[in-house]
């Protein structure tokens, strides 16, 4: 049981609303879901779609073709009809049309006493019915969604859903959705997971300049700000954002910013500042295809080498790249901990694909569990902010305590004051760079998926986790011998560990959503691999598992 439902239409037609409602409905019934979104850089018109894959086992990837296409307008029908699987169905928002199930959603919504915007509910009702799914899930979903708006709205929506169901009655049985299973009933998107992790980990100050696909994180945080006690402020530009969080972090609160490639480019000077001042800032970098504005609403993994080397001068940093919403949550917390433990900036890289992925998630703890900031509460009078230590980590005090805290972007002495003393320079630079050793000892080992003795290793990082993982299953099911090595931390790298895992394999292929194989380059740079094959995609769409399996010729 593995079905892919595709809701497609113009921007402004409610593709997202319908999709969200359906994912929540299915998940609420403990069905495994995996949804993705594809949209254009415009507010109205064009072609957007929302894929919801449902199955009786955990899912990690989208699929190329749909089993059920819900076409919200005629153009969509024409464009996407060919991508429906044999035996699939098309539900069309319009007049009768050859071989499709046609319902005029808006008219129907109005007929049963709803308004035009309830067309989405009619569609959702029809889909749930078509798959032969239990209707109570959808009803309670509608109740939750519209409860605030009063019973009338709820009732109208339920009526719409029922009518949708009624109108497809003739077709029920043609498609069968998966049964409820042990899937977690909660769902979470990549961006929500990051926001929630930040809020619960004690981030107190968030400032960003809006930029797709990162905006969802700060929007999420704005909505939970009062609950968790956070100041969320839109910055005048990205430079302001990064410098504001440097200030806030200096003053003692965990702080973060969110951006995409172009905005990150503007933050690079501030990143180096955090490196020099030893400030534990957290930057969320949601990637999209470049260069420059590129394809603002599409996905890519093109900023890896940039992020790892961004900033003038040399300073330690850690760079994380989660592969699932769950990892978005776990690694955001972990990244904040690492940043504070080593007093150095961290970057968490995601992309449009993962930002919008929604998937059943177990255990996203919403309780407030602030991380340890590693702050010295009672510093001595003769406190020095940059005391040279063996680990490179100096005791950290914050202003307003018993000691003066001096930080300077110029090279400075242990007391934080500007220096031109070149021996001091070396001492302090060495101190800062020694933190790399600690960072290295705490590096997250890459995840291995598949048989230990696999001949062919697919190297993945960040959001390619899911598609690669499912590709491994596909390859092995058809007689291949593949495994995946997935990196959720991409900097620094534990060279010996990687060598051990990769040594003696017949084939190694880096699977990356970029053109040049950036992670493979990084692995070569640190001496972890010498040669490897590349499987790349850079048209702005994510990989699908089938595609990887197919393109990896045996």
């Amino acid at each position, binding site marked *: 049981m593995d079905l892919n439902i595709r809701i497609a239409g113009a921007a402004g037609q409610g593709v997202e609303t319908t999709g969200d409602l359906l994912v929540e409905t299915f998940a609420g019934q403990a069905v495994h879901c995996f949804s993705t979104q594809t949209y254009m850089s415009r507010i*109205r018109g064009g072609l957007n779609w929302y894929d919801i894959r449902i199955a009786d086992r955990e899912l990690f990837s989208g699929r190329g073709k749909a089993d059920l296409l819900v076409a919200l307008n005629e153009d969509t029908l024409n464009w996407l009809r060919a*991508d429906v699987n044999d035996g699939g169905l098309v539900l069309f928002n319009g007049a009768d049309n050859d071989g499709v199930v046609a319902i005029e959603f808006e008219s129907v919504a109005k007929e049963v006493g709803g308004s035009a915007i309830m067309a989405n509910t009619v569609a959702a009702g029809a889909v749930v019915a078509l798959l032969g799914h239990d209707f109570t899930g959808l009803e309670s979903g509608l109740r939750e969604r519209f409860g605030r708006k009063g019973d009338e709205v709820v009732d109208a929506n339920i009526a719409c859903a029922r009518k949708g169901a009624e109108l497809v009655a003739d077709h029920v049985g043609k498609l069968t959705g998966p049964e409820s299973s042990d899937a977690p009933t909660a769902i979470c998107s990549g961006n929500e997971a990051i926001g929630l992790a930040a809020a619960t980990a004690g981030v107190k100050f968030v400032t960003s*300049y*809006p930029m797709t696909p990162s*905006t969802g994180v700060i929007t999420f945080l704005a909505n939970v700000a009062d609950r968790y006690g956070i100041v969320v402020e839109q910055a*005048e530009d990205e430079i302001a954002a990064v410098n504001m969080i440097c200030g806030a972090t200096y003053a003692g609160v965990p702080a973060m910013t969110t951006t995409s490639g172009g905005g990150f480019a503007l933050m690079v000077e501030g990143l180096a500042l955090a490196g020099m001042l030893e400030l534990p800032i957290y930057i969320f970098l949601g990637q999209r295809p470049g260069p*420059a504005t590129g394809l603002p609403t599409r996905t890519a993994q093109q900023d890896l080498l940039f992020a790892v080397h961004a900033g003038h001068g040399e300073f330690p940093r850690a760079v994380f790249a989660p592969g699932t919403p769950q990892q978005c949550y776990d690694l955001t917390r972990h990244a904040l901990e690492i940043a504070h433990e080593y007093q150095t900036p961290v970057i968490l890289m995601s992309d449009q694909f993962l930002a919008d992925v929604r998937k059943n998630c177990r255990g996203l703890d919403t309780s407030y569990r602030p991380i340890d900031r590693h702050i010295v509460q009672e510093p001595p009078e003769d406190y020095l902010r940059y005391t040279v230590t063996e680990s490179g980590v100096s005791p950290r005090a914050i202003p307003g305590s018993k000691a003066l805290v001096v930080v300077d972007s110029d090279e400075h002495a242990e007391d934080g004051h500007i220096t031109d003393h070149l021996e001091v320079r070396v001492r302090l630079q060495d101190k800062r760079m020694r933190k790399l050793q600690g960072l290295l000892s705490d590096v997250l080992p890459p995840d291995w998926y598949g048989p230990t003795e696999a001949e062919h290793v697919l190297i993945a990082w960040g959001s390619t986790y899911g598609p690669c993982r499912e590709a491994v299953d596909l390859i092995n099911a058809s007689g291949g011998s593949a495994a995946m090595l997935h990196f959720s931390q991409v900097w620094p790298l534990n060279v010996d560990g990687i060598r051990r895992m990769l040594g003696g394999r017949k084939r190694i292929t880096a699977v990356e959503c970029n053109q040049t194989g950036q992670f493979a380059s990084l692995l070569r740079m640190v001496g972890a691999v010498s040669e490897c094959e590349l499987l790349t995609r850079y048209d702005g769409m994510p990989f699908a598992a089938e*595609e990887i399996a197919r393109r990896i010729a045996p």
Partner: protein
Amino acid sequence: MIEKPFFDSDIAWCPGCGNFSILRTLDKTVEEAGIDRKQLVLVSGIGQAAKLPHYTQANVFNGLHGRAVPAAVGIKLANHELEVVITSGDGDMYGEGGNHLLHNIRRNVGVKAFVHNNMVYGLTKGQASPTSEIGFKTKLQVHGVMSLPFNPLAIAIAEQCSFVARSFAGDPKHLQEMMVAALQHKGGFALLDILQPCPTYNRVNSFKWYRDRVRKIGEEHDPYDRQQALDLAFRWGDEIPLGLIYKHDRPTFESQLEVFKKGALVAQYRQ
């Protein structure tokens, strides 16, 4: 994950958007003024407004968000024979690009800046812009905007900008007058702030809201009078003045350069 190629886009604006009127008026202005489109460069940043150059016939430099002004100035200095017109959004010009506006008014290079001011960030789906009013609620400004709105006219006048005007997308005739005046202005940097309703993300400052408030300033106004001009610039609320608000005569950057006496830089390049 579809493997099908996409189709090419039509105009990416929402039905009913104020940008359509600005586009039509600009086209009409260019036609009627007989401007050679081959000598016209439209410069923009990123945003809904910033897509305008794609929907007409002209040379186009669609650069980075917030950076239309320096790009335009670079173009104008390389070839000051070109007519260089910026068409971009309020976030672009007053937010991310604020520093360039500030310092290029001082520099007084003869580029024309037409700002589609919809008091919101359209393309990124409705956050506050620098000109959003106090209390304006969005998905990000959940408790409403708290910062005082940026007043582009007051700032430009305080900096003695050579040309400062305001118009309204809902009054194409007036808009055309102002565009013509800006294009005819030979005295340097010209700022034309255009009130542009965004029916999708700014439900407060709608066409109607503006129509009820805009007032064309009368003949009696002397745009060379800074005091009067500032007074108009500070008016907002029940009455919003439209028109040529301020002028200040001083040499353009181009007129002061020895090097330009020999012609445009690009024309001097011989090889």
